[in-house]
């Protein structure tokens, strides 16, 4: 039981993610997460505005069930499986973020400065989350995949566009964490 409640090490996570990919393919479908953004747009009626969304979303019912599973799994984890969200961070990371004005760095999975209730009701906090979401949604559709589809499925099946996409992920992620985060906090 202790193992269930303790944080899982990277060498547990890597294989379990690979097994998730294996099962997804074994069940007969291509592993990925971000096409669901498109499917949800189609369900919301985006086909009225662009032919790009004129697709039969019922063909992706399996992926929508996967997404519902993700939400349920997240709820079960936060409610029952993670009694302590403390993260063992590098002291450099803690000092850096503390200097930027973050409090209780690493005490929970999500910093209050971005995910806290008193933050997302402010214009700045609202925009940080919304605009990040827009970048994720736009970028992943333009790139043709996300961390699951490109970094894991694409790299492991040796696809060149996926290598380029992962390089792009890092260019963006490095600009975000080295330049943008210090300038907005």
């Amino acid at each position, binding site marked *: 039981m202790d193992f269930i409640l303790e944080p899982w*090490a*990277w*060498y547990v*996570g890597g294989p*379990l*993610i*690979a097994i998730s*990919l294996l099962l997804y*393919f074994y*069940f007969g479908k*291509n592993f990925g*997460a*971000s096409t669901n953004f*498109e499917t949800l747009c189609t369900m919301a009626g*985006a086909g009225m505005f662009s032919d790009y*969304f004129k697709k039969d979303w019922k063909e992706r019912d399996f*992926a929508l*069930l996967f*997404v*519902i*599973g993700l*939400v*349920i799994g997240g709820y079960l*984890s936060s*409610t029952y499986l993670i009694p302590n969200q403390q*993260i063992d961070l*590098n002291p*450099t990371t803690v000092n850096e*973020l503390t200097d930027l004005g973050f409090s209780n760095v690493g005490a929970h*999975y*999500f910093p209050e400065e*971005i995910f806290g209730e008193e933050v*997302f009701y402010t214009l700045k906090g609202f925009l940080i*989350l*919304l605009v*990040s*979401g*827009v*970048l*994720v*949604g*736009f*970028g*992943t559709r333009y*790139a043709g995949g996300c*961390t699951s589809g490109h970094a894991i499925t694409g790299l*492991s099946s040796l696809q060149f566009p*996926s290598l380029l*996409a992962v390089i*792009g*992920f890092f*260019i*963006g*992620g*490095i*600009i*975000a964490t*080295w330049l*943008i*985060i210090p300038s907005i906090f």
Partner: protein
Amino acid sequence: MKNSKFLVLGVFFAIVLSKTQAISWYRFYEMFKFQSFHMYGIIGGAVVISMVFMQLFKRGIIKDIHGNKIHPKQKKKGIISPLLGGTFFGLGWGISGACAAPIFVIFGFKLIPALLLLVGALLGAFLYGLLSKKLPN
């Protein structure tokens, strides 16, 4: 229902991401700042083991549940689209600490922020749909 196994797989995948802290904003921040091995170990380990699975798919040693050969979908070709699209994605990922699957997992942790991220992601995907024919590949 025949697809309910995907629901169970979603629950499993979400638990794996949650328990390994691979949905935490801090874990991605330190990854992009090269201050920890944790996420490199998780993603790198997943990729290396998946490579073995891909070889087993290719040789037909592992077939799918219907007995068919498994062919991972080929990504669309292009240079600019994966690089530039990837960069936009990375910007959003680096700021919010959330990539695609974790956005749904975060619903169970931080409901309203996850909702904002999802609304943003849908707007972004919608924007891409409108512009897709005009953007370079």
